[in-house]
């Protein structure tokens, strides 16, 4: 490799090539910076800092199009940090400091499906058509005889990016290990029977029908008939009966599992 004098290649071509590309580069650099000046989107760095703390899953549980929009809403004070469940509590503390908002470390939550019907719930007709719970309930309230129960077409499963909801033998079931309580399934379920309950909860009501006992017996073999045994047997009176359906007040519940044992229809299940 003798001392290099660029003798093998034609220097003139090299210079013209470099010249052209350089001129192009300068021209386009100027054009690009000009457009960047014209279209300067002023994202104040507060929103950027908040966006870094958020989980970035873009799940939409907070009701905004994605983490970027939620961060902007947070910065403008229009949204509250509790709206985003997937972000870990420490990140929420940091965001609260950025916003200068007092941060009450509120309870961790988990999603749960208030229905266990599925195959043991009778069907009015056999539905063949476009998939998705939303479409199915447009047609006479869905194929199940029970008007409140889960129809098992899996819209929640389709929209859960954490793969935490699965339709097993006709009814949606939440996999507690994977659920980050982002709340997307709560919004997508057209029957509104998925609810976020405190993670520390040990039991939940696996039914959401408010029909009277006789109709329930006819529609579903595992539906709650509103007998009230759970209310009577709860030592801390944590369960109250509203409109033929028991409701658990988790602040009083001491997880004694009395209600689970006493329920004749096995509607109260453990987490």
């Amino acid at each position, binding site marked *: 490799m003798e001392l290099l004098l660029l003798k093998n290649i034609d220097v003139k071509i090299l210079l013209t090539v470099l010249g052209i590309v350089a001129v192009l*580069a300068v021209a*386009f*650099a100027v054009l*690009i910076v000009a457009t960047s000046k014209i279209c300067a989107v002023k994202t104040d760095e507060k929103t950027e800092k908040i966006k870094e703390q958020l989980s970035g899953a*873009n799940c939409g549980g907070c009701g905004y199009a994605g983490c970027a929009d939620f961060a902007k809403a947070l910065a403008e004070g229009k949204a509250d940090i509790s709206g985003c469940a997937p972000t870990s509590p420490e990140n929420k503390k940091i965001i609260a400091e950025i916003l200068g908002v007092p941060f009450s470390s509120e309870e961790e939550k988990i999603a749960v499906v208030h229905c266990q019907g599925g195959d043991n719930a009778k069907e009015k007709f056999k539905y063949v058509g476009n998939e998705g719970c939303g479409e199915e309930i447009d047609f006479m309230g869905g194929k199940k005889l029970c008007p409140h129960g889960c129809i098992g077409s899996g819209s929640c499963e*389709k929209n859960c*990016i*954490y*793969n935490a909801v699965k339709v097993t033998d006709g009814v949606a079931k939440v996999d507690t290990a994977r659920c980050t309580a982002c709340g997307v399934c709560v919004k997508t379920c057209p029957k509104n029977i998925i609810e976020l309950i405190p993670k520390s909860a040990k039991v939940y009501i696996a039914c959401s029908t408010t029909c009277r006992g006789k109709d329930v017996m006819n529609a579903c073999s595992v539906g709650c008939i509103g007998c009230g045994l759970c209310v009577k047997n709860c030592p801390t009176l944590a369960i109250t009966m509203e409109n033929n359906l028991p409701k658990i007040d988790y602040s009083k519940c001491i997880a004694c599992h009395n209600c689970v044992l006493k329920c004749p229809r096995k509607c109260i299940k453990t987490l």
Partner: protein
Amino acid sequence: MKNDYKKIAFDGAIKNNPTLKLVLGTCPTLALTTAAMNGIYMGLAVTFVLICSNVLVSLLRKAIPKEVRIPAFVLIIATFVTIVRLILDYFLPDLNDIMGLYLPLIVVNCIILARAESFASKNGILPSALDGLANGVGFMIALTLMGAFREVLGRGEIFGFKVWNFTLDFFGTSAGAFFTYALFIALFSLIYGAIADRKKDKAFSPVLKEPNGEAE
């Protein structure tokens, strides 16, 4: 820091396989999977260029202002491909005869710019190099498998050796390429979905979500 590398390698090659999961670089994939050997050569070429361009991009990531990053990345990748061709031509002429066909295609390959844009411009040099290697290998495996599949069914050969003389020239056409590609993506999602379920992998969802949702 160590398992972080393992995660990058695993992510790049298998979990977020550029061809089968993020579905990037479809032009070379459809065009070149007519033969398995193409897959191997293209895979090698892409892996090499991907590693080097990722390293260079992550080296300069702080210097390149955000406004002109795409033209700068494209220049780096194009320069690299030219340098690789010069080196091959001088030192390994016979390899250059074979690879010479694929090198110009690489400048137009989406994977390299995608990795440079979404990974290398945000991480350090070593992770970027590893990510380049992982994605390159993932790309090569996917292309070779598809190439073999189409070659066996389309021309009854594998790597050029006669297997049987049953030929379906549907697989030689572009419609066949689309069909094979669809088949392999579904297969990948099926196999990996099963592995993920057993391993209780939280983030993997069998239904393919928008790639940018996960690639970030």
